[in-house]
């Protein structure tokens, strides 16, 4: 049995927010959830998607950090910014192709998912994968994921001309070897819509 790895399957997310709440229990970022849970197009569907850090092999967040504050552990986990060094510039927040790092203005520091390093470094599952009821976030062996899912896990991405390899895998159809990101437009954008005070979807969109 191979070593455990993290697998994400956006299509399985049911938006229960168990991952969001469990994440806040992690000791490395107590009380602050690092998971992003997006409602994709609130007006037209109930589709939701979680986003954890994908832990890039050559993290773009670390490359653009002027303070050299983002480090990767020997086992490939990209950590939150080092507290003594982070100057809160948000370069990482704006550059991460997966939109993961969060700038915490109160403490003037970037924080991000560190795969619950207090747990995963001793062989335990990250909190989100422990509680996810639908398997959208799964921490298991490669053999197990291939045995139980229709698709295959890939960790190769392309954003424009930039190729990115990640420690975390995404589940895709068997024919796919790399996820090429194009810009999938949404049907309606809050800024393009007329200002309607009774439009709840629009109001919630603005609150995100």
């Amino acid at each position, binding site marked *: 049995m191979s070593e455990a790895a993290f697998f994400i399957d956006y299509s399985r997310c049911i938006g229960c927010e168990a991952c969001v709440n469990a994440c806040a229990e992690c*000791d490395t970022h107590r009380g602050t959830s690092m998971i992003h849970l997006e409602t994709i197009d609130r007006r037209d569907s109930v589709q939701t998607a979680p986003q954890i850090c994908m832990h890039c092999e050559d993290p773009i967040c670390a490359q653009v950090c002027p303070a050299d504050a983002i480090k990767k552990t020997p086992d490939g986990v990209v950590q939150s910014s080092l507290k003594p060094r982070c100057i809160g510039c948000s370069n990482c927040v704006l550059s991460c192709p997966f939109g993961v790092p969060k700038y915490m203005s109160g403490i003037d520091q970037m924080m991000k998912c560190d795969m619950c390093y207090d747990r995963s470094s001793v062989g335990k599952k990250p909190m989100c994968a422990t509680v996810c009821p639908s398997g959208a976030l799964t921490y298991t062996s490669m053999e197990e994921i291939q045995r139980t899912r229709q698709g295959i896990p890939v960790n190769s991405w392309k954003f424009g001309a930039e190729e990115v390899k990640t420690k975390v895998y995404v589940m895709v159809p068997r024919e796919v070897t790399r996820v090429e990101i194009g810009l999938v437009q949404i049907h309606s954008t809050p800024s393009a819509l007329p200002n309607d005070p009774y439009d709840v979807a629009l109001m919630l969109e603005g609150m995100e």
Partner: protein
Amino acid sequence: MQKRIFPTTGSDSAHAMTWGLIAATSLVIGIFVGSRGLRDFDPALVSYAGACVFSAFGLGYRYAMWLRRPPTRLYWYRGWHIFLDRKHFMRNVFHLGRIFWNNIVLQRFIERRSHKRWMAHWFLAWGCLLAGAVTFPLSFGWVRFETSVDNQQIYRAFMFGIPLGSFRLGTWIAELTFNILDVAAVMVLIGVFFALWRRGRDHGAMSVQQFSNDLTPLIMLFAICVTGLFLTVSTHLMHGLYYIFLSQLHAITVILTLLCLPFGKFFHIFQRPAQLGLDFYKRAGAEGPQAKCIRCGQEYGAALQIEDLKTVQAELQIRFQMTDGSHYQDVCPQCRRKNLALTQDALWRSTDMSKRGLL
């Protein structure tokens, strides 16, 4: 192709070596001139001064190397450029005073992270700075003390050979002057105690801390303080017992720490003031036009920073240009996250449709 704003030339290590030598040479010249041609230089402190010269070389080298990184270089120059802008210079000076007070003196941003962390850091930082403010000028021969020629009870202080003032032995000012390093040592020990207490009980900190990076600096500071306090104990309570051995032991701990300044955690002392420059950059960005996401149309950052990031990315060979001519950097982080799920969705949909012969 983005244009390079602050290009670099030559090899990184040769450039850094040059700055290291400039820093070390400047210090040697400073010691020579400040001690009036070594007349005020105390030979007993030559090992400390020598370690400082090595440390200055290392710090110059590391800082220059750090500034060679494209994002660091860009922010460093941008920060200075915005600060020195003639139109807002006086406003910037006042703002600098305010953020220096809050961020460097009071260290408020650490207090918001955790009171225990702030307490530890405040005592460590100000204990070390107080000790540094006393020992560096003494080791360089910039400050010296001597008894008055006509009265052995009067002590006189000189800086660069200029008389600063005098005080009588046995007064509170004399006690404070002679024991200022003990005060600094106690402050640092309080900081070390709080830091180790937190690091020994915080499960989060325990999982990510490294012995070399997080604990070694605390151990070194602890060693300096304890061996320094031993000197006072030896003098006042033990009639000078083992004083020479203890002074050599203390010198070794201080010299080792000085040599470690350019490496690991200690280097953040020199990196951290960059935060002040960034504050001006952020302010200029907030006052200028804002970038709008090409997908949702919402504002998501300062246009100044987004354009600078494209320049930095080009220098780092990060190629976010899309095939349709747009730039991925112009998509807000939230839309990027939504886009990932929609892309995966589209992959399943297209595979399903092609299997059913619809594509």
